[in-house]
């Protein structure tokens, strides 16, 4: 914790709670503990030497989704998510991470994915492209590889339809997003170093990712730690936006709403590209939820929350579904496999939840 962070938590700790109304964990627990100012107060008291972090305080720090929604509403622009992550990193160094997070670190180190799946089966569910001399490396990310393979397969299909030769990496490791976010820096850098090595060694000129967590890790976290990938990296929504003309058309009567993933929106500032893709193929822009773009509510599936507090995570996801339902849309699109996974589970059959690339793959007819 540096001086700037100390000054920030001092202000945030004694704020009259100007952002609490959008904090998803306040929504889930309805308590002043898992809130931005609550976390700041714990850190402020620790810095001032008033009170050490006890076990419950550490729990409160791990009840943060790091969604950064509070930052949208903070006039002094205090980035509590980053401060929490910084303290989580120190807690890891002190050996004081929650057991569930320690287990997660161990699983990723062994299997290179957070789902405890064998690394050897990483590409097992995917329809592997056979292109020679590929021009794109598709970094699938763990969720698309193991749990949301429809997204990976649609990505391969759509990129192929656009005329690109796509390569997948058998030895892709977890991007380490869950490890960075939970403060497990040492293990994160192990994964990152490996990925940088194989991505830089590959002959393809571009990298496309499905997962905003991967995008943030590869483009922000890796460089922050001196790890540079020497080729451009695109989220699939950015890439589709660059090639909108070839995407085809959907039935314009299908009303669509769009959920901004925190990592893509607030953390990587990608808001317009997915919307342009939707408008391009539907002929109409998405029906916006009241909370959209910088003010979009988190889906509830981030920074280890679902792992440790599944009920709270689901409650947040369900609320996001309620917000989507209020638009009257038939389809809720996201651009994050992690978001889709939780939102789909919470949607039941009330609204269909798809990733943008699945929408493009399955709902469009070729204009040519």
């Amino acid at each position, binding site marked *: 914790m540096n001086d700037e962070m100390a*000054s920030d938590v*001092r*202000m*945030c*700790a*004694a*704020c*009259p*709670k*100007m*952002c*609490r*109304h959008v904090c998803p964990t306040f929504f889930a627990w*309805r*308590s*002043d*503990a898992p*809130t931005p*100012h*609550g976390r700041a*107060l*714990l850190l*402020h*008291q620790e810095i*001032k*030497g*008033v*009170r050490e972090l*006890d076990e*419950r*305080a550490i729990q*409160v720090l791990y009840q943060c989704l790091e969604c950064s929604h509070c930052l949208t*509403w*903070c*006039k*002094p622009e205090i980035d509590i998510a980053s401060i929490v992550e910084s303290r989580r990193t120190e807690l890891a160094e002190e050996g004081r991470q929650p057991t569930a997070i320690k287990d997660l670190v161990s699983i990723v180190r062994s299997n290179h994915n957070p789902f405890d799946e064998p690394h050897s089966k990483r590409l097992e569910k995917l329809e592997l492209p056979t292109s020679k001399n590929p021009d794109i490396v598709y970094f699938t990310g763990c969720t698309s590889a193991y749990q949301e393979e429809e997204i990976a397969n649609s990505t391969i299909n759509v990129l192929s339809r656009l005329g690109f030769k796509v390569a997948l990496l058998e030895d892709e490791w977890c991007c380490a997003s869950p490890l960075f976010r939970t403060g497990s820096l040492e293990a994160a850098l192990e994964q990152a170093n490996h990925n940088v090595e194989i991505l830089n060694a590959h002959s393809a000129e571009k990298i496309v990712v499905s997962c905003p967590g991967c995008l943030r890790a590869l483009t922000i976290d890796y460089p922050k730690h001196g790890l540079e990938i020497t080729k451009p990296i695109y989220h699939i929504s950015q890439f589709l936006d660059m090639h909108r003309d070839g995407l085809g058309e959907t039935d314009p009567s299908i009303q669509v709403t769009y959920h901004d993933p925190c990592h893509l929106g607030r953390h990587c500032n990608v808001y317009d590209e997915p919307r342009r893709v939707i408008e391009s193929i539907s002929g109409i822009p998405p029906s916006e939820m*009241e909370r959209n773009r910088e003010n979009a509510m988190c889906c509830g599936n981030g920074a280890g929350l679902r792992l440790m507090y599944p009920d709270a995570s689901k409650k947040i996801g369900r609320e996001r579904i309620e917000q989507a339902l*209020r638009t009257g849309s038939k389809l809720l699109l996201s651009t994050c496999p992690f978001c889709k996974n939780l939102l789909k589970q919470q949607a039941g059959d009330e609204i269909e939840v798809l990733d943008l690339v699945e929408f493009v793959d399955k709902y469009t007819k070729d204009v040519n």
Partner: protein
Amino acid sequence: MIDSDKFGELVEKLHTLLGSDYVTVQQTDKVLNAHDAWPLSEAKIRAGELLPLADIIVFPSTTREVSEILKIANKFLIPVIPVGGGAGTCGGTLAIYGGIQLDMKRFDKILEIDETSMMVHVEAGVVGVDLEEYLNRHGYTSGHTPTSVRSSNIGGFIATRSGGSMSSLYGKIEDLTLGLEFVLPSGEVIFCKPVPRHSVGPDLRQLFIGSEGTLGVITKATLRIFPLPEERRFRSVSVKDVSTGLEIIRKIFRAGISPSIIRLYDPEDTAFSVSTHFDVAEGDCMLMLAFDGSTSKNDLDEATVMEICIAEGGNDFGAGPAERWWNHRFDMYYPSPFTTSGYAIGDTIDVVATYDKLENVYHSMKSAMEAHEAVVLSHFSHMYPNGGSIYMIFFTAQPDAESAWATYKKIWDDGVAACLKEGGTMSHQHGVGLSRSTYVVDELESAFSVLKSIKEKLDPNGIMNPGKLGLEVRK
């Protein structure tokens, strides 16, 4: 504090009633739940001081649970401090004698909009902004949007007799509350059924509005709602002094016009809040207005108001300053490096008086507060046909905590004394809580005995929020 055996028994009973997820004795939870928005609490937090803590926090979600908690508390003779959004500015939810903090945040359901009778039924823990957004979605407004609206709850509004920034048109919460469900200290649940008016003796609803948790717990309420106005139109006029501004406001009401917003900034507040963005002559005061209604109605009201303003020598500033205030009205509420550096502390003494006394109250309080080298900025807002409130805002910075807290208290003591001496009332909308508790006897004079008798009758064991509202103050 009760002995450890009894405390264990108490915790066990609460666990049985609510389940372990909704009872906590964790120190971390107590620390985080102690934090309200009293500027002195906030300054103490920044200085690294610990606030008084409850012994237990409970999170009920039904009226029955609240009722049972109060019965248990009466049996164990332990204080109960109801907490809403934790957004109060007077320390009203601080557990100064320990006890059970009864956190109402799980009472978070908006039950029903009744469009026929134009009212909404809500639980007490609904956050103000959540209700307002919900109503807006249906084409209505609560008319109640205080600066704390993002963090304060319906129950807290009612418990503190709060006022929104548009109270001149829509009224304060005591005008907006049609019905109540209330749990008495004995655990008995009573209802004040929603009716527009009645003649069945004194209005008991008004006994509980503003009771600040000292007479029981608000669990549900029925509030008035209004159609969203077709437009909100802003207008601003500078005037040469406070006296002229107040004369204009009086004439506006005499003309039968009720703007939704009427704010008159004194020269210091104009210089601080307005002149930084608009070219206002030094020493002038800014009058900011808003009109809610149809275009044709606003045309008429605005024209009449401007005639009054121009006749009194006002200079038309168009929509600018008023509209800017509206769009930035939450900014002042955020901490900033300027307002939080060192042992800086600022607060607002919001008072109210009739027009015949209002200007004297202002001058007298300003002198008394400035005598302690405080920077004092003031505006008149929440104006009504018979008078209105003054926001006496002050800042002081001292070299150490001890002198900062002492200076803060002197400014309050002398400011309130000056207000009372000139015939003002020492709180318009922030309530009493802890910060004004010692002034209640002087404010109510002989009528305080009535409040005290009611308290003793309804809460004979004195368990409900002791030390607040001048009641059950212990050594």
